[in-house]
C-alpha cells in the first residue's frame, strides 16, 4: 500500500504493469500477433486518454482498439501514442516551448511562439496519421520491433499554419534541398541518436503540410505532440514530428540513424508519386507515402450474428489520391460486393464504409474488405514482405458464424 501511494504521488504511468486481470485485456486482438505480444497487451489509460491497448509503457506505445475505426474521425482520447525514446518532457516544461526556424540554407533564423504560429494563415486538413510500423505484428514471418496490430493509426482534423509559410519567416536560399525536423523529446542516454527526420523541400512546401496546433478542435494531447506537431498528409507518421522545436532548411542530406538506417523500404517495392532524391539509394528508399488500405472494425470478434443479417463497418485510406470504392467479401475473397461509402472528408482522410448483408443463411463466413483508390491501386493478396514489417495491406480474414 505504501509503495502504491508513493508511485501515485510520483504520477507513475506504470502502475498497472504488474498483474493483468482478464478485464484489462482488449476485447479483440488478431490471432496473427506473436504469442508474447498477445500476453503482454493490456488495456490501460494514459493521462487524458481512454483505455487503449498498451504494448509498452516506457517509452509509451499504445494502440487504438479496432472498434474505434467504426468512425471516420478518431477522438483525441482514443488516438494512438507512439514514442521511440523515453525522454518525454512533461506538460509543465512544454509551457515554455518555442520553435526555432532557420538552418544553413535559410536567409535568417527566427524563434517563434504559439502566438506567431496563430498569426499566420490557418488551414485545416483531415488526415490519417499512421505509424509506419502499423500491422508489423501481423508480418509473416514476424520481425523485431513494436508488434502493432491494426490500431497504430488515427484520422483527425488538424489545424495550423502551412509549413511553407512558417519556412517563409526564415526565408529559403536557392540551395535548400531538405527540411530537418526535431522535437523536444529525446533519448534517455546521450549516446543514443536523437530522433530527427527530414522532408524533401518539395513535400515540405506542399500546400497540405502544416504545423498543427489543434487536433479535432482541441489543443494537441500531450502525447500526440503538444503544443505543435508537423502534419504530413499522405506520408507515414514518422515525419509528423511531435513537440516540434526545430525546423531547419538544409543544403545537404540529413545524416541520421532514423533516416539512413531506420524507416527504409526496398526500392521500387511500393508505389510513390514523389521521390526523396536526397535520401533514396539504389537498394532502399525512405518509407514515405502510405499504401491503399482498409480495416473492418465491426464485426471482428465473437459477435453474435443472426440470419436477420448484420452490417460490416470500417474505414479506408490511401496516400492522397482518395478512395474510389471499397468492396467486401463474405467468402474470404472469392467474390466481392461494393460497400457504401461514408462522407468524403478529403483525399488524405479516412473514408468510412459500410455493407448491410440483409437476410443471410446460417453458416460460416469469412469477411474481408479491400479499398481501391483513384489511382487504381488496391490491396495486395499476398504480403509484400520487407524486413521492418512496413506497408502491410493484405485484406483481413475474419471468420464469423451466423446462427
Amino acid at each position, binding site marked *: 500500500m505504501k*509503495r502504491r501511494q*508513493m*508511485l501515485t504521488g*510520483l*504520477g*507513475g*504511468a*506504470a*502502475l498497472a*504493469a*504488474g498483474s493483468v486481470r482478464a478485464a484489462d485485456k482488449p476485447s479483440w486482438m488478431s490471432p496473427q500477433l*506473436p*504469442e*508474447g*505480444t498477445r*500476453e*503482454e497487451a493490456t488495456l490501460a489509460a494514459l493521462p487524458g486518454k481512454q483505455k487503449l491497448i498498451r*504494448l*509498452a*509503457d*516506457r*517509452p509509451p506505445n499504445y494502440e487504438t482498439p479496432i472498434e474505434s475505426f467504426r468512425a471516420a474521425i478518431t477522438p483525441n482520447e482514443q488516438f494512438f501514442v507512439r514514442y521511440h*525514446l*523515453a*525522454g*518525454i*518532457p*512533461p506538460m509543465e*516544461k512544454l509551457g515554455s516551448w518555442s520553435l526555432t526556424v532557420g538552418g544553413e540554407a535559410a536567409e535568417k533564423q527566427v524563434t517563434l511562439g504559439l502566438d506567431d504560429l496563430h498569426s499566420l494563415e490557418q488551414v485545416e486538413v483531415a488526415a490519417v496519421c499512421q505509424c509506419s510500423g502499423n500491422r508489423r505484428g501481423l508480418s509473416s*514471418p*514476424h520481425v*523485431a*520491433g*513494436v*508488434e502493432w496490430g491494426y490500431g497504430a493509426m488515427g484520422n483527425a482534423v488538424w489545424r495550423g499554419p502551412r509549413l511553407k509559410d512558417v519556412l517563409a519567416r526564415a526565408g529559403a536560399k536557392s540551395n535548400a534541398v531538405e527540411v530537418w525536423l526535431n522535437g*523536444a*523529446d*529525446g*533519448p*534517455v*542516454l*546521450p*549516446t*543514443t*541518436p*536523437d530522433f530527427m527526420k527530414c522532408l524533401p523541400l518539395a513535400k515540405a512546401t506542399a500546400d497540405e503540410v502544416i504545423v498543427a496546433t489543434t487536433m479535432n478542435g482541441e489543443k494537441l494531447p500531450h502525447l500526440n505532440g503538444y503544443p505543435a506537431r508537423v502534419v504530413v498528409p499522405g506520408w507515414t507518421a514518422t515525419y509528423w514530428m511531435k513537440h516540434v*522545436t526545430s525546423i531547419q532548411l538544409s543544403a545537404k542530406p540529413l545524416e541520421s*540513424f532514423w533516416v539512413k*538506417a*531506420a524507416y527504409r523500404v526496398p526500392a521500387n517495392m511500393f508505389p510513390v508519386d514523389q521521390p526523396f532524391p536526397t535520401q533514396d539509394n539504389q537498394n532502399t528508399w525512405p518509407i514515405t507515402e502510405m499504401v491503399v488500405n482498409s480495416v473492418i472494425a465491426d464485426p471482428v470478434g465473437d459477435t453474435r450474428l443472426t440470419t436477420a443479417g448484420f452490417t460490416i463497418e470500417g474505414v479506408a485510406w490511401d496516400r492522397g489520391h482518395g478512395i474510389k470504392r471499397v468492396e467486401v467479401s463474405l467468402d474470404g475473397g472469392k467474390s466481392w460486393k461494393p460497400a457504401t461509402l461514408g462522407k468524403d472528408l478529403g483525399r488524405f482522410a479516412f473514408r468510412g464504409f459500410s455493407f448491410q448483408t440483409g437476410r443471410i443463411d446460417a453458416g460460416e463466413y469469412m469477411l474481408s474488405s479491400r479499398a481501391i483508390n483513384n489511382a487504381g491501386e488496391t490491396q495486395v493478396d499476398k504480403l509484400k514482405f520487407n524486413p521492418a514489417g512496413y506497408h502491410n495491406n493484405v485484406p483481413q480474414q475474419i471468420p464469423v458464424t451466423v446462427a
Partner: protein
Amino acid sequence: MIRWLPVFLLLAAPALADEPVLKPGPGQDVVQASCAVCHTLNYIRMNSVFLTPDAWKAEVTKMRTAYGAPIDDDNASTIIKYLSETYAAAPKS
C-alpha cells in the same frame, strides 16, 4: 535535449520500480539492469517467441552500435545467451 535529463530520470524512477519480471535464468539480472535503462522489459516479452538466437544477437548488436547502449562485450554475451535460451525460437536449419 540534454537539459531535461534529470527530469527524465525522475519520471523513469517509478517505472523502473514496477518493471515487469522476466523469466528466470542465468543472466537475468544483467538483462534487467542493462535493457531497462532505456526501455521497458516488455519489449523483450512482446518480441517473443519468434526471434532466433541469431536475430536476438542482431538486436543486442543494434542496441550497442545504433542506439549507443553502454554494454561491454562480456555483458553483451551474457544478454545474448539469456535471450537465446529464454525468449528465442529454434534456429533456422
